[in-house]
């Protein structure tokens, strides 16, 4: 059991090191620029709007770059190993195919965690700088004014603190990571039977988009009634059974919009993600075990 875990860890570490050597983290530079620019671009808007834009664009950039890393990175994992024939050397050793696949996936999760962590640090840095600048502006404007204006400035400062140090952003970042983990899992599953990385990227992205419409398909399947014909019902049912509902991660937008999202709900979504990933990995292992290399 422990030996198996050691082998998985070794493969994961190797996958992470390889990805880092490909200078994947250069994308962070781009992220930093987007976060900083979006932070200072909308100075003419109200306080709430400015923070919303900053959070939306930063978390959005995290999602986009994370999606790119998850898609491109995972899609290349197996084809590269097969093309370079390194997979034969690894599997010739006492390493099971399942351990190889889990190791690869864990490596990708570690890469995503690293990039998300670094992007989050940049994000927090930008938001705290914005907070400092806005507070300074409020204090400057309130200088030498009457008590009423100063009370208003104090209220605004409280609001700035509330917006900038919103602990709910942790929920948003966790959910973004969960969404990316699902994308990486889907890409790995597809790459176990795909013949090229391009196929994997295209199919995974398609499943990702369909995932955002899964709730519509499910609703039509469950409540469509006689309006939906039999063939369409079968199709919608299969879709609802197989494709993950990516809309459940839209709660990120609610968090940024200022809604109170209970932790119980976040944990429910994270549990769904966890179980879904377990199923994805099980199916991927079953297919990969049968694949002729």
């Amino acid at each position, binding site marked *: 059991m422990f030996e198996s875990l050691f082998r998985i860890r070794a493969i994961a570490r190797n996958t992470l090191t390889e990805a880092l050597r490909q200078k994947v983290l250069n994308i962070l530079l781009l992220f930093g620029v987007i976060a900083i620019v979006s932070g200072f671009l909308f100075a003419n808007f109200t306080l709430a709007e400015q923070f919303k834009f900053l959070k939306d664009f930063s978390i959005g950039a995290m999602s986009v770059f994370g999606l790119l890393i998850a898609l491109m990175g995972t899609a290349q994992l197996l084809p590269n190993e097969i093309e370079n024939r390194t997979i034969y050397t690894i599997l010739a050793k006492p390493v099971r195919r399942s351990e190889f696949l889990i190791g690869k996936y864990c490596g990708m999760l570690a890469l995503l965690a690293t990039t998300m962590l670094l992007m989050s640090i940049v994000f927090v840095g930008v938001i705290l700088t914005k907070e400092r600048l806005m507070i300074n502006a409020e204090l400057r404007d309130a200088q030498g004014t009457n008590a009423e204006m100063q009370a208003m400035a104090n209220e605004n400062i409280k609001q700035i603190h509330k917006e900038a140090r919103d602990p709910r952003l942790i929920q948003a970042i966790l959910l973004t990571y969960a969404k990316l983990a699902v994308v990486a899992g889907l890409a790995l599953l597809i790459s176990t039977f795909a013949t090229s990385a391009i196929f994997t990227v295209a199919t995974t992205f398609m499943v990702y988009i369909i995932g955002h419409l899964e709730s519509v398909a499910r609703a039509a399947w469950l409540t469509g009634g006689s309006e939906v014909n039999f063939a369409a019902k079968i199709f919608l049912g299969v879709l609802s059974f197989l494709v993950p509902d990516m809309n459940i991660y839209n709660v990120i937008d*609610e968090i940024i919009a200022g809604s109170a999202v209970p932790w119980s709900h976040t944990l429910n979504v994270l549990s769904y993600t966890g179980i879904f990933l377990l199923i994805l990995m099980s199916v991927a292992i079953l297919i990969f075990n049968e694949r002729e290399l």
Partner: protein
Amino acid sequence: MNWYRHRTAIWLALILAAWGTLKVCWEQGIERREAELRFHGYTINRDLRDQLGQGMMLGLLSGFRGVVADFVWLMVTNSWQDKQWFRVKSMVDLSTTLQPRFIPFWDLGGWHLAWNASVDRRNNRDEPNELRRLKEERYWINEGKKIYERGAENNPDSFEIWRSLGLLNDQKLHDYRAAAEAYAHAAAVPGAPVFLERFPGYMLEKAGDDAAALEVYKRLWYLPRDHKVPQFGYDKVEERIRALEAKLKVPREKRVFP
């Protein structure tokens, strides 16, 4: 049939059938919870696609609802600066549809229509007919009111929209009873500023219903609170009670301040 040869396919089918059933139930549960939390803002349909355009629709389908709503809101601001009021209205509708829980979209959207658009139309120099100008002004005030009403319906836990609705009823429609009602709603929301509690009284006084206004102030006066805390504004409450008791000629024995 050789079961051993087909074992992978059988396992796959079993896993997917079991998971599929659990998955659908789980997703339904999450969706129900989100509906309880009022997170469901929009349904993807052709109308939405036509309004958003292809690029933004792709953004929406890729899970970037917040960013898409921000872009739509930037268009609101641009249209406001260009005084394209119907475009402002449709963009406000779109951004509030995409993110109904972001209060400033409702609050500022209503303000653009009820204040900016109405004043602009009222002062429209290209329209010589004053009656038509007044009609247009009233139209935009009502459009702003509709935004606030929908906003309040979607966000009953927000005092800001009720407060704005109160302000609109007071300053634009001069419907002081409706304003008093809106302010009472705003004040009842947990976390609302305490000064809002006095506003229904002020509005009822403006409506000429001094007796009802006095009841509002008296109810505030008898709340079990420290009357010396300046935030509660009891000096103002006392002033209004004294003034109304004198105006209404309340018998001394029934007065709060005999």
